[in-house]
């Protein structure tokens, strides 16, 4: 009987813990690894393929911004890819509704209401709004605030203002 009781308690505790953990990661913040070099040098600055899993950056993604969907220019956000909702990408918002963006393929794009323009910091190696256009803000799943791993790169992720916005 003792073992059954013990197992039951253990399951109960795990369940409670999972419930609370899931809620916190949905509502407040979670920690995710960053893959790829599209955001280098902000994340994964020295990508060495042999050591990839060790040198990968881990970042805090806060979800509180999803209550109001208010973002500022230069925020780094996590969003589901518009082409495949299971893929999550990390990019920087470089334009908000009403802004004009100049791109290599079109002259200028006016960002529609409720959309934003995302670009990777590593322009040469990034699949972003320059290929798939503005994305709805509803696809955004969180805002990256801090790097927590590796230890020597712990710190805040700064808001950086983009340079490629046409001024009107």
């Amino acid at each position: 009987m003792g073992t059954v009781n013990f197992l039951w308690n253990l399951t109960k505790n795990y369940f409670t813990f999972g419930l609370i953990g899931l809620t916190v990661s949905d509502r407040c913040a979670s920690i995710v690894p960053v893959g790829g070099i599209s955001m280098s040098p902000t994340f994964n600055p020295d990508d060495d393929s042999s050591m990839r899993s060790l040198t990968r950056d881990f970042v805090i993604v806060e979800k509180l911004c999803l209550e109001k969907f208010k973002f500022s220019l230069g925020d780094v956000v996590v969003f589901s890819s518009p082409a495949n909702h299971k893929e999550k990408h990390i990019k920087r918002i470089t334009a908000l509704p009403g802004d004009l963006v100049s791109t290599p393929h079109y002259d200028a794009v006016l960002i529609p209401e409720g959309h934003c323009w995302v670009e990777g910091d590593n322009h040469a190696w990034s699949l972003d709004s320059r290929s798939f256009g503005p994305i709805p803000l509803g696809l955004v799943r969180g805002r990256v605030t801090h790097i927590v791993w590796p230890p020597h790169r712990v710190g805040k992720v700064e808001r950086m203002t983009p340079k490629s916005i046409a001024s009107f």
Partner: protein
Amino acid sequence: MGLGNLKQLTPFVKEAFQQTLLVAKFLCGLHVTNTYLCTFALTQGPSMLPTFNLTGDLVLAERLSTRFEKMQRGDVVLVRSPENPRKIVIKRLIGVGGDTVKYVAGPGNNDKEHTIVVPDGHVWIEGDNKFNTTDSRKFGPVPYGLVQGRVFWIVWPPEDFGSVGREVQ
């Protein structure tokens, strides 16, 4: 305050902590059910008129078929509006990625029919009330990531209580 007082307080603190934990657990359970299983939603406006009332119905929407991609054409879905991320709209799923959709842009005054192929990973949504709705005919196909759930049951008003079908009645 002496040590004796502190000892007297301990059970209260313990009790308070336990009660808080209970409430927290309940709220977490609520959140998880709401996000991963099913949720209530309130309809609003004329865009789904024969299916839902103008005055607003209380409906139940489930999240599982969205998560496991079991959506079918004709399902009534909750979609985060691409024009305003704070708003969730209820529309009918007309086409999924790869489908060819025929639609009339402005029924009543302009009956020209358009044809579009829905891109991969996107869905085409339309309101049941073709004359008064803001849907894919205006803002184009929406990414699947914006779909939030499938409406399957009308809870209120009581005379409409029952399941929501795949066809417009």
